[in-house]
């Protein structure tokens, strides 16, 4: 699914990722933890091709394609999805219109016809139920005036509609109440399949009680410094990151 080899990346002339290696096979769930400012969000941005993130070395294969040869929107249409740590608002553009445009863009890319307005409406309504978002949210502007938790659930709604092959969730659990956390976790678990992989960035082991990962990585100082199973998350909760960072230097 995804093979990252020796990745170096800069933002604003500052080197953030420094020789990162990571391989993710189809069907796997990988959790990434690590201290603030370690480069976790940067990794998500580099993977999805955000402007301003300059890759200085390394390569990434995504479904046997050179990821860097694809534009941001092509990566998305090819099945790479990023749930944002801080979802932005687009005032006046209805959620429904936005969701339909993105689903249609993906369908077109795969040679499928656009969905009719009625078909899509039905699909969107059913899906919004799965994340417990009232239908009124489909009519409102994209994230416009949504609460923090509503924004995060809206991200999961988009993920469900787009059915990506690689889902990157950047701190989707931050700021969620207990019920919402459960909703998000259920959404992810429902979507787990042998063809779909997840990268879950989180600071809290609690999420991993609900979404049980196959691997847990620690990203510190621009590299994966430790990899383990789900018990690593528990260990981190107890000991923090200092001991690993010392090891890494």
């Amino acid at each position, binding site marked *: 699914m995804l093979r990252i080899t020796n990745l170096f990346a800069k933002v604003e002339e500052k080197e953030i990722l420094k020789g990162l290696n990571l391989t993710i096979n189809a069907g796997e769930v990988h959790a990434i933890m690590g201290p603030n400012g370690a480069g976790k969000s940067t990794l998500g941005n580099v993977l*999805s*091709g*955000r*402007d*301003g993130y300059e890759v200085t070395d390394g390569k990434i294969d995504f479904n046997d394609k050179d990821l860097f040869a694809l*534009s*941001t*929107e092509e990566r*998305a*249409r090819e099945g790479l*999805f*990023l749930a*944002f740590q801080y*979802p*932005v608002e*687009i*005032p*006046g*553009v*209805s959620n429904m*219109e*936005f969701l339909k*445009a*993105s689903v249609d*863009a*993906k369908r077109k*890319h795969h040679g499928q016809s656009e969905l009719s307005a009625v078909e899509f409406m039905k699909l969107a309504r059913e899906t919004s139920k799965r994340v417990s978002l009232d239908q009124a949210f489909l009519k409102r*502007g*994209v994230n416009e005036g949504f609460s923090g938790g509503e924004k995060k659930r809206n991200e999961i709604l*988009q993920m469900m509609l*787009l059915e990506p092959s690689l889902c990157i969730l950047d701190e989707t659990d931050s700021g969620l109440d207990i019920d919402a956390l459960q909703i998000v976790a259920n959404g992810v678990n429902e979507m787990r399949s042998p063809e779909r992989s997840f990268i879950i960035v989180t600071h809290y082991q609690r999420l991993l009680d609900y979404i049980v990962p196959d691997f847990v990585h620690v990203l510190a100082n621009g590299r994966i410094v430790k990899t383990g199973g789900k018990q690593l998350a528990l260990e981190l909760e107890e000991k923090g990151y200092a001991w690993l960072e010392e090891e890494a230097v």
Partner: protein
Amino acid sequence: MSEQVKQLINQEYAAGFYSDIVSETLPPGLNETVIRFISAKKNEPEWLLEWRLKSYTAWLEMIEPEWAHVKYDDIDFQAVSFYSAPKSMDEKPKSLAEVDPELLRTYEKLGIPLHEQAALAGVAMDVVFDSVSVLTTFREKLFEVGVIFCSISEAVHKYPELVKKYLGSVVPQKDNYYAALNSAVFSDGSFVYIPKGVRCPMELSTYFRINEQNTGQFERTLIIADEGSHVSYLEGCTAPMRDENQLHAAVVELVACDNAVIKYSTVQNWYPGNAEGKGGIYNFVTKRGVCHTNAKISWTQVETGSAITWKYPSCILRGDNSVGEFYSVALTNNYQQADTGTKMIHIGKNTRSTIISKGISAGKSSNAYRGLVRMNPGADGARNYTQCDSLLIGDKCGAHTFPYIESKNPSAIIEHEATTSKVSDDQLFLCKQRGLDAEKAVSMIVNGFCRDVFKELPMEFAVEAGKLLQVSLEGSVG
């Protein structure tokens, strides 16, 4: 340049073609003889010729206004032709069958079929080509309910009392430089009269087309809604792509008698000039309406074209409880310049006005909102609400807001809100991450920004306006 690339560029302004039509065009220049020629051409009564000449004398003594936030080289009025009409229009066609097929093709290409069967359902159309009205559809049907919809030249002959009474009653001849010029040389335009208590059964619409080179278009529109009547009117405009600038100086006057409602919508798509700022229409327009007791005038405009737009559709709220509205989207790209807004003059008691202005600037363009809200001493309990939002795309364009407020009545309430925002990188990234390309993303964000105005447009045109924005924004994101 490859053929494909050429096609792509031409696609940007789809209405940019020229129709090969034999025309009678006056040599460039402006003097008394030209005015007499225009008047004679239209077989006008003596009073109208006098009216024109008076306007001309006044214009000669006036100077071009310079307060607008626009820059352009002096206009050489002696280089402009003030009258051009297709030869085939010498005898005005009495029916569609008599109209030159090349003219019909022009409108078909523009997506405006003139055959009544093929026309947009429920829309009657007056089409003005350079200086003359070609034809007006659905006239008989409208006449059955007493609605008069014809060219102003025709109205001068058929309804002289109405024209004499109202022409210049809202925009006086000497109102401003361009209005005076228009009053002297106006060629054609639409005339509408809705009788007492009648709700006009169709949308009325005028489509303006400038075709001939070096020709100015000086149309004049007069709409009178008698007591308790109702009308919705829409105007559209296009011109061929040319390297020279062309002048368009129009005057529109609206009269809403007691309890009448006029809704006037504009989709302005004059040629904006090319990406380097060469060519395009200079659009200097005076539009104003007067509202009597309980009457309402609502202006909605979507301005995407023209090299320069200078335009302030206004309402004089004379009668008590009258209502004025102005909803505007003005988009500038490349080197376009727009200085547009409105004036709301509150004279009557409890008059209300709403101004919603959305300015979008892209490329190296400049976009200014200029608005005046005046509360006269007698305007007890009057209210105004103004919201003025600017959206910037890129960092080489400019947005400016010039709100003028004059309140001479302490009981009047004026509210003003203004915002400036950018299409942010975060928004663009979100859209791209969801599979949308940059152009689609920008047009969606811009459409969202304009939503409050688009919802005021008649349905069919709201869709058109959205598409037009998308085309006008082409090339605005790198």
